[in-house]
């Protein structure tokens, strides 16, 4: 098998429309009539009408496009991948992270560092968790691989800071305990799809 079929980038069928452009007039009389026709056609006033209509729309019908950015912000998609957030369990308030290390393993720019240990109940505890945002490329693999929906991408896209270490510690990313009631369930990259229940099938029993 050759590579020809892969080099063909014309995917799909093209449906070009040929514009009905008339031929340029040849004789002086035809040129003159074209000029006269275009002069008295009033197309220029159509242009004036459009601009003044848009002005009235903007001023009196609330169709102004401008967003005064630092004062007002456009909503972003739930799939937007900004600074990470660590979520808590809604009932107990304990952080969701179980210290499995999958995010550290999958991170393709090696920016996640975590250390875990056993606590007094022999449960795994996250003692260190940082993301180096100087390296992070916001690919979203960590959020996708997380089995507990513990690490997700939040909506915080204004990431200019004085310190490189800002918002990269576990405590910085973790939902504050007093804001637990405001914690939003993540429906973006790597989250369970809205129709997940329909996709679950009974495990076929072989016996």
């Amino acid at each position, binding site marked *: 098998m050759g590579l020809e079929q892969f080099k063909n980038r014309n995917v799909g069928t093209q449906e070009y429309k040929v514009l009905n452009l008339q031929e340029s007039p040849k004789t002086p009389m035809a040129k003159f009539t074209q000029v006269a026709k275009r002069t008295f056609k009033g197309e*220029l006033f159509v242009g*004036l009408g459009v*601009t*003044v209509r848009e*002005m009235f729309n903007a001023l009196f019908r609330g169709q*102004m*496009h*401008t967003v005064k950015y630092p004062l007002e912000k456009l909503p972003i998609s739930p799939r937007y991948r900004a600074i990470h957030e660590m979520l808590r369990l809604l009932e107990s308030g304990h952080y969701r992270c179980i210290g499995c290390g999958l995010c550290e393993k999958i991170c393709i720019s090696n920016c996640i560092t975590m250390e875990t240990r056993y606590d007094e109940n022999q449960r795994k505890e996250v003692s260190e968790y940082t993301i180096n945002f100087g390296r992070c490329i916001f690919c979203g693999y960590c959020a996708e691989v997380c089995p507990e929906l513990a690490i997700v991408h939040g909506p915080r896209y204004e990431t200019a800071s004085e310190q490189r270490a800002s918002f990269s510690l576990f405590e910085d990313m973790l939902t504050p305990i007093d804001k637990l009631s405001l914690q939003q369930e993540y429906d973006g990259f790597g989250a369970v799809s809205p129709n997940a229940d329909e996709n679950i099938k009974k495990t076929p029993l072989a016996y």
Partner: protein
Amino acid sequence: METTTLIGQLPEVTAAGVAIKAILILAIISAVAGFGTYLERKVLAFMQRRLGPTHVGPYGLLQIAADGIKLFTKEDIVPQHANSLIFKVAPVITAATAFIALAGVPVFPDFTIPEFIPVLGGTFVPSIASDVNVGILFVIGMMAAGLYGPLLAGMAQANKWGIIGAARTAIQFLSYEVVTGLSLLAPIMLVGSLSLIDFNEAQSGGITSWFIWQQPVAFVLFLIAGFAETNRTPFDLLEHEAEVISGYATEYSGMRWGMFFIGEYANMITISILAAVVFLGGYNDFGFIAGWIMILLKVAFFFFLMLWVRAAWPHVRPDQLMWLCWKVLMPIAVINVVVTGIVMMV
């Protein structure tokens, strides 16, 4: 030195009155020209559904002050290979001729300074700084002389964009000036005078006596030529950014560039006043509306029209401008003059 004796006869015009008028024109038109930049940015923004300047002062009104501070405090740069004398003189030509042209047009109504003001009390301030008997010719001539500003500026700055801008200035000047003169000739024939006061008085009989009804063709021609004269959008070949960076103003910055701008806006006001006085009844009273409000409204309309056109229309190529002016507008203007003459004779 004062005393109105006969009805309709104005008090004597003194040197002090003319000097006050000149200072008034300079102060007010410079301020209005500055304000015009704000208006232009606002109107263009609204037509593109943007907000325009909003942050400096209420509704961005103090943007003019901010711009002024910026222009005045910018470093004054004269390019190394430029002819520095001509480079420095050129913006002055544009600004000065724009204001000299305003000496010949009736800018505001006349008034007498009240007696209680100590030194100047009782001085009569005329509506025209100098009512020369070739009024309209003087104004048009001065505005034409103003084109030396861009021409010399473009050639003096040792910059290829400037050279192209200067060449386009020459092209544009040669093209529209004929049309301006010929289109104004027909109303001049009807009035029989070159004084703008006479134009005003010839149209004092209400809206039906306006020359736009008698001379619609001349009005359209004059408007087109006026747009070319003030370098407004359909004919802004001199400084069209997409083609020649800034044309003749490429190497200019700071207050020198600001003087070009003030000159351009003053010219816009002059052309607006000319169109209002020659074709739209000037500063005659209109029903219950006083004359000075009428002239303000008319000038404001023409000013707005220039911004409106800039928002709506693309600009033409230099060769299209020459084609339009020489092959279309000039013959129409000549025919208009001839027809007017025949109608007047019959």
